[in-house]
């Protein structure tokens, strides 16, 4: 019995100590290395004996590097045939370290603090990495070895990839070469229910439609009070006032092309007046501060799919998903994409997709490997690499028809299937083509053959094309980095207070001016100078 007690005590102590120290250890379970690639790496002699693969690959000797990134959705963490093929073609071995998107920034910080820095870090804040001295500039390397990458960038993309701290490029981006993304949307069946035949275009027509949605039982559920005439955040209505903004921060250009904040524009006052009036009348979403395309999109989707939202500005794909969900109960339900609202001064606009996003940077730990890493990604951005990343492997994921790659089923049936196969792998820099996007969108069918909800999505993508504007990036100047955390949440709060009538427009501007003394003016000044430097 005494012996048993001793064992029990020792075992308990051991388990408790292990629990304590396990928190300090590195999580090896997330380090994924392709097993196929391991085989390649461990059997180079076989390849040499075959005498063919060595000459076809990018590197004569297996080039190894580590890559840290965050992964989400349907993207596969392991067993990605596209990467296996890419590594085979280039004779590269990549040690992937994938982490969930939630708290990824913290994971990056911890990784930097541990001193065990991977060769590349993807999806992290580039200004933060620069500030920590963790990554290296790539301009010279790109000029020498990355011409395919540079050729993939359009002039306007440089505003998003160049860093304001020194105007240099620090990361290789993911590029989606497809402009359409958002659409103004309205419930066509609601319009019919309230007796409106014409799709609203002007500000007054939209207000009339919203009033009708509010006053009548537009969704026909017997409760005339639960309709949300315009659902979502207020930022999505800014383009109707000539303020081309596609986020809640609000950087834009003034009439002279100077980089500024939306609050500085004369049009903003009219916007405030109109929003306050809409809110007072009950036409604006009561929950505008907590749901919307630029605030919390899943919440916006939820209210749309609950048959409560009459109109909104959000991702064009929402027309399809919402219509499909609603039609399970009401076969008449139809959410259509329409031209953007023409505001009180006749202005209208809809943000296009920012071509470049995410991206991966080379860390100081891989300075000696940087040249080869750029060469590797230069291959990824070559015609062959683009085809592999967008269409997969010939015979497996696509076939060549009339000299063009055509995706095979099931990969062209949905983005979920497509991504599960390792295609359109957004956590990894590459160029994804418009043609591949459209092939997946249409599921290998013609427009006439696709389902009606799919047609709604397709139409919504292009309905506002003539009013597309490219969103202005948020420039991470020194002042912005220093003060943004205290200035912008405060501004957001003031704006919400102003819209709900808690404070007047004059009080809003008075508080806004006060913020200039505690950093806002510096943000404006440095932003203006940085924009000049980037556009020079």
């Amino acid at each position, binding site marked *: 019995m005494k012996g048993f007690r001793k064992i029990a005590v020792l075992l308990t*102590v051991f388990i408790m100590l292990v629990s304590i120290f396990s928190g*300090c250890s590195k999580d090896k379970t997330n380090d994924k290395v392709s097993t196929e690639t391991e085989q390649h790496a461990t059997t180079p002699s076989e390849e040499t004996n075959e005498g063919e693969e060595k000459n076809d690959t990018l590197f004569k000797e297996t080039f190894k590097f580590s890559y840290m990134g965050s992964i989400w959705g349907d993207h596969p963490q392991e067993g990605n045939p596209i990467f296996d093929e890419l590594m085979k073609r280039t004779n590269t071995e990549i040690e992937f370290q994938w982490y969930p998107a939630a708290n990824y920034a*913290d994971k990056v910080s911890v990784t930097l603090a541990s001193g065990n820095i991977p060769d590349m870090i993807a999806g992290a804040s580039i200004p933060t990495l620069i*500030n920590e001295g963790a990554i290296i500039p790539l301009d010279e390397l790109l000029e020498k070895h990355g011409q395919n990458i540079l050729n993939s960038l359009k002039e306007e993309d440089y505003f998003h990839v160049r860093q304001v701290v020194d105007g240099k490029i620090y990361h290789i981006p993911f590029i989606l070469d497809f402009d359409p993304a958002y659409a103004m949307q309205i419930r066509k069946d609601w319009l019919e229910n309230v007796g409106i035949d014409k799709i609203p275009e002007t500000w007054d027509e939209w207000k009339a439609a919203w009033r009708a949605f509010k006053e009548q039982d537009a969704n026909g559920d017997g409760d005339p009070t639960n309709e949300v005439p315009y659902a979502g955040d207020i930022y999505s209505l800014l383009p109707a006032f000539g303020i081309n903004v596609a986020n809640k921060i609000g950087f834009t250009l003034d009439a002279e092309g100077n980089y500024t904040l939306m609050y500085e524009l004369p049009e903003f006052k009219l916007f405030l007046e109109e929003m306050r009036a809409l809110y007072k009348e009950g036409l604006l979403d*009561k929950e505008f*501060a907590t749901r919307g395309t630029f605030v919390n999109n899943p919440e916006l989707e939820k209210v749309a799919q609950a048959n409560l939202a009459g109109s909104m500005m959000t991702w064009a794909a929402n027309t399809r998903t919402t219509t499909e969900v609603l039609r399970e109960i009401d076969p008449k339900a139809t959410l259509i994409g329409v031209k953007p609202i023409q505001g009180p001064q006749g202005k209208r606009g809809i943000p296009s997709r920012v071509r470049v996003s995410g991206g991966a940077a080379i860390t100081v730990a891989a300075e000696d490997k940087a040249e080869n890493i750029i060469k590797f990604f230069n291959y990824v951005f070559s015609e062959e690499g683009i085809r592999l990343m967008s269409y997969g492997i010939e015979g497996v994921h696509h076939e060549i028809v009339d000299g063009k790659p055509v995706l095979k089923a099931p990969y062209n049936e949905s983005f979920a299937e497509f991504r599960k196969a390792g295609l359109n792998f957004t956590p990894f820099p590459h160029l994804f083509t418009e043609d591949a996007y459209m092939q997946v969108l249409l599921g290998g069918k013609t427009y006439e053959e696709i389902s009606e909800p799919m047609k709604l999505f397709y139409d919504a993508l292009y309905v506002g094309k003539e009013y597309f504007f490219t969103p202005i990036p948020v420039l991470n100047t020194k002042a912005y980095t220093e003060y943004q955390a205290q200035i912008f949440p405060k501004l957001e709060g003031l704006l919400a207070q102003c819209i709900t009538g808690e404070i007047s427009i004059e009080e809003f501007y008075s508080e806004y001016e006060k913020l200039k003394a*505690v950093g806002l003016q510096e943000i404006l000044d440095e932003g203006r100078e940085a924009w000049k430097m980037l556009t020079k």
Partner: protein
Amino acid sequence: MRRFKNINYRKVATKLWADRYIYLMILPVVVYYIIFKYWPMWWLRVAFYDFKILKGFKGSDFVGLKHFIAFFKSPDFFQIIWNTIYLNILSLIFAFPAPIIFALLLNELSNSKFKRAIQTVSYLPYFLSTVVVVSMIKTFLSPSIGTLNSIIKSLGYEPIHFIGDPEYFRPIMILSGIWQGIGWNSIIYLSAISGIDTELYESAVIDGAKRYQQILYITIPGISTTIIIMLILQIGNLLSVGFEKVYLLQNAQNIRVSEVLSTYVYKMGITRSNYSFATAVGLFNGVISLILVLLANKLSKKYSEISLI
């Protein structure tokens, strides 16, 4: 020094060896405190540097009190401190007594099955993650799809945007906190009640004391030490508000009242990787909390002769 001279080290060693398994049992706790509580204190000096993770202390600039001054000078400093303290004072007034009252009520239940069922049900919310709790709160209170607003609308009133109205933020925090913690927090008081000598109740019954008189004159004085110790600890947390729930319930409309120290530190320190600033605020918070605990302890010692140290 004389005291140490009189120590019989051989005797101490023998005693230690005899109780070795007890000391071994306490080892993980000691290790935990050294690693996660004491060792990080050495890193508090991060607050006095412009600390760069990759460069360490040698490569980072010493900036003295720069981050403390930046914190004191931030435009919403007083508002944030007030929001934090006010929320905690409300919690002290409403949420602190709730588990005590609940424990007293539970103690009065004579049907043991019913008592156990109530206890189990009341413990359950404590085990829900904050994210789930906030999601439930938001859904329940939503003006468009929430149950509460459906009731309000059925009574002929306009729906209320509870989550967006600053007036409702604190009541939501306090009430949901009570709901989530009342059962779990009552355990300590129930165990204190169970330690009261039953003979006292028997004597009181003989003397003709009614139930409420037994509670008032036996149960409450019997658990007063526990109550005061818990109160002292709670006062020490006046500047600390659980981060997750506030952050998840926060939005542009209620930020005026919902911005507290922990959310501010998160935004200012963690999201922009300014660890020095976050450490400075954390250190400020720690020092104030220590002062408050010592103060509460002293007052308690003076007036009730019960204290932690």
